[in-house]
C-alpha cells in the first residue's frame, strides 16, 4: 500500500491502493528454502551421492539431453526409487498440512485450529488401527488397506463432526462445529485405545503408525496423495481472499455478500481430503499445520493472501528438512517424523514468537 497523496486545492487525488499479495522477496525466500530443502533431502542419506552426480542424473533425465548419468545403476536406483520419491512425498505432505492448517484457522477464526480439529487424525488412527489388527498386510486395488482405512476413517470423522455440528449449530455454527469435532475425536480415540489394548500383539505396529513416517517404498505414496493434495491446494489457494473476508465474522462476511457457511463447507472439504490423504500415507504428523501458518503470520503478514501460498511452500520445505533429520539423526535407525516436527518446531516457534513480539505494537 502506498502513502497518501496530499489533497491540493480541493482536487481529490485517489490514494494508490494495491491488492494484497505475497511480497516478492518472501516469494523468493520461500521458494529458495524449498529448493534448498529438496537438495539437502535428496543429497543426504546413508549411501553417499555427490551433488554433481545427482545433478548429472537429473540432467540426463531431461528431454532432448543426450548425456548419460555418471551414477552407478545402484546409485540411480537409490536416488530415483528411494530419495526423490521420499522428498517429494515430504514436500506434498508438509505443504498440505500447513495449508490445511491455515485453512482451518481461517474458516474457524481460531488460531489453535489445526488440520485435525474436526477429528481427522482420530478417525485415521482408528481406521489404521482396525486395519492393522484385523486385516494385516491386506491390500485393496494394490493399495495397503491400512492407508485405505485411515483415509476412510479421517473423512468419515470430519463428515460426522460436520453433520453433528450443523445439526446442533444454529446461530453459533463455528463453536458447535469445533465442539462436535472435539466430541468425535474423543469418542474415536477411545475406541482406538480400546482396540489397541485388546490386541497388544500389534501394539508396536500401531504405535509406529501413530507417530508418522514418510514411506520409503517408491512412488506409490506420492501417486496416492498427489490428487488430493492438488485439490486441497487449488481450492484453498483460490479461497485466500474469501478467507480474509471471513475474518470479519459470519454476519459481516454475509453483509459483504459472502456465504460463510458455504465457504466453510468447501474449504473444510478440500482441507480434509488433503489431510486425510496425507494422514493415510504418512500418519498424523503433528505441529506442521499450526507452526507454519503462524510463523508466516508473525514474520510476513496475517492476510490469507500471504499466509496460504507461503504456508504451502514453507510447510513443504519444513517437512522435507524434518524428514532428512529423522533419517540421519540416529542412523541407521529412523526417528518418527512427528517427534522431529515437534522437537524442532516448538522451540523454533517460540523463537519466532519472542522475536516478533518485540516488534509488535
Amino acid at each position, binding site marked *: *500500500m*502506498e*502513502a*497518501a*497523496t*496530499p*489533497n491540493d486545492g480541493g482536487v*481529490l*487525488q*485517489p*490514494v*494508490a*491502493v*494495491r*491488492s*494484497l499479495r505475497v511480497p516478492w522477496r518472501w516469494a523468493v525466500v520461500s521458494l529458495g528454502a524449498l529448493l534448498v530443502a529438496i537438495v539437502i533431502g535428496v543429497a543426504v542419506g546413508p549411501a553417499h551421492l555427490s551433488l554433481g552426480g545427482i545433478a548429472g542424473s537429473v540432467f540426463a533425465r531431461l528431454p532432448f539431453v543426450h548425456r548419460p548419468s555418471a551414477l552407478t545403476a545402484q546409485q540411480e536406483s537409490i536416488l530415483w526409487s528411494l530419495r526423490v520419491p521420499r522428498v517429494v512425498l515430504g514436500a506434498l505432505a508438509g505443504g498440505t498440512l500447513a495449508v490445511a492448517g491455515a485453512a482451518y484457522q481461517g474458516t474457524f477464526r481460531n488460531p489453535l485450529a489445526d488440520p485435525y480439529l474436526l477429528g481427522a487424525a482420530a478417525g485415521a488412527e482408528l481406521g489404521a488401527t482396525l486395519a492393522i489388527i484385523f486385516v494385516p498386510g491386506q491390500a485393496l486395488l494394490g493399495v495397503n488397506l491400512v492407508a485405505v482405512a485411515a483415509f476412510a476413517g479421517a473423512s468419515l470423522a470430519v463428515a460426522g463432526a460436520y453433520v453433528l455440528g450443523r445439526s446442533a449449530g*444454529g*446461530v453459533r455454527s463455528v463453536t458447535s462445529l469445533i465442539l462436535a469435532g472435539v466430541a468425535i475425536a474423543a469418542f474415536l480415540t477411545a475406541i482406538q485405545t480400546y482396540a489397541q489394548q485388546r490386541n497388544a500383539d500389534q501394539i508396536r505396529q500401531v504405535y509406529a503408525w501413530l507417530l508418522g513416517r514418510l514411506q520409503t517404498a517408491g512412488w506409490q505414496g506420492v501417486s496416492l496423495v498427489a490428487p488430493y493434495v492438488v485439490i486441497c491446494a487449488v481450492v484453498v489457494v*483460490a*479461497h485466500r*481472499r*474469501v478467507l*480474509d*473476508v471471513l*475474518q*470479519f*465474522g459470519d*454476519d*459481516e462476511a*454475509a*453483509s*459483504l*455478500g*459472502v*456465504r460463510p457457511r458455504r465457504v466453510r463447507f468447501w474449504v473444510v472439504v478440500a482441507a480434509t481430503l488433503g489431510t486425510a490423504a496425507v494422514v493415510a500415507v504418512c500418519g498424523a504428523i503433528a505441529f506442521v499445520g499450526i507452526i507454519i501458518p503462524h510463523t508466516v*503470520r508473525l514474520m510476513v*503478514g*496475517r*492476510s490469507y493472501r500471504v499466509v496460504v501460498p507461503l504456508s504451502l511452500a514453507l510447510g513443504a520445505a519444513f517437512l522435507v528438512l524434518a524428514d532428512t533429520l529423522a533419517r540421519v539423526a540416529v542412523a541407521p535407525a529412523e526417528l518418527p517424523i512427528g517427534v522431529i516436527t515437534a522437537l524442532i518446531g516448538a522451540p523454533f516457534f517460540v523463537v519466532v514468537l519472542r522475536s516478533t513480539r518485540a516488534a509488535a*505494537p
Partner: protein
Amino acid sequence: MIRVEHVSIDYGGAPVVRDVSLVVPSGGWLTLIGPNGAGKTSLLKAVAGLVGHEGRIALGGVATGDLAPREVARRVAVVPQEPEVPPGMTVAEYVLLGRTPHLTYLAREGARDRRVAGEVIERLQLGALASRELGRLSGGERRRAVIGRALAQQAPILLLDEPTTSLDVGRQQEVLDLIDDLRRQDGLTVLAAMHDLTLAGQYAEELMLLVNGEMIACGRADEVLTRASIERHYGARVRVLPVLAAGRAVVPVREQRAAASEEED
C-alpha cells in the same frame, strides 16, 4: 429506497420485532430509537438480509428475498455496531475488502476496485492512515475506516448500527456530519439505530421509536421526542429542549434527592 412491510422477526420462538412497517425514501435518513432490546439491530439485520423474517422488505423496489446475498450487498452497506477489525490489517486492505460484493466468488480485485477504494480513502481523509494497521487507530479513525469499507461497496443504502458508540462528543458529530454529507452528495439512503436521542433527533429526517419490537411512534424529532414518551418507554427522567428547527435535545436529569439539592445550594 427502503420499504419494510409488516416485518416480524423471532429468534427461536422469541419475537423481537413485531409487524413493523416503514419507508425510507431515496436520500432520506430514518433513525430507529428505543430502549435496549427493542429490536433495532434485528430490524437492521433483516433489511441487510442477514436474518430471516416474516413480511416483505424491498430495496429500490426489489424484494430482498429475490436477491442473492451478493446482490443485496451491492444495494445495502452495513456499518455494524461492533465491527470485527482484524488488528494486523491495514486501512487500505480493509477498505478494499469492501469491494467484495462486486467480485465474483474467487476473483481478485481489479484496477477499478483499487481505484474506488483509493477514492473512498481520500474522501474520508484516511490517506495518511492508508498503510496503518487497524489496531493502531484511534476509535474515531477506526470508525471512519469501517465507514470507508461500507462506502467502497458503492451501495445506495447505508445501514448504521450505533455509529457513535464509544466515541467522544467531537468524533460523534464528525461521524454523523460525514454521513450527512455523503447522503446529500451521493443521495445515499440512511437507516440507522441510535441510543443518543439528541444526536438522533438532529440528524435524521424521521425517527421511529421501537419498544419490545413494536413501533410506538414515527415522525419528526419534535413529534417523537416528547418528555412523556421517553420517561414512559425508557424509564428515564429527562428534559426535552428545542434545538434548531425541529431538533430536540434530550437531557437526562438526576432525580432530586435531599443530598443532591443540598450540594446545589
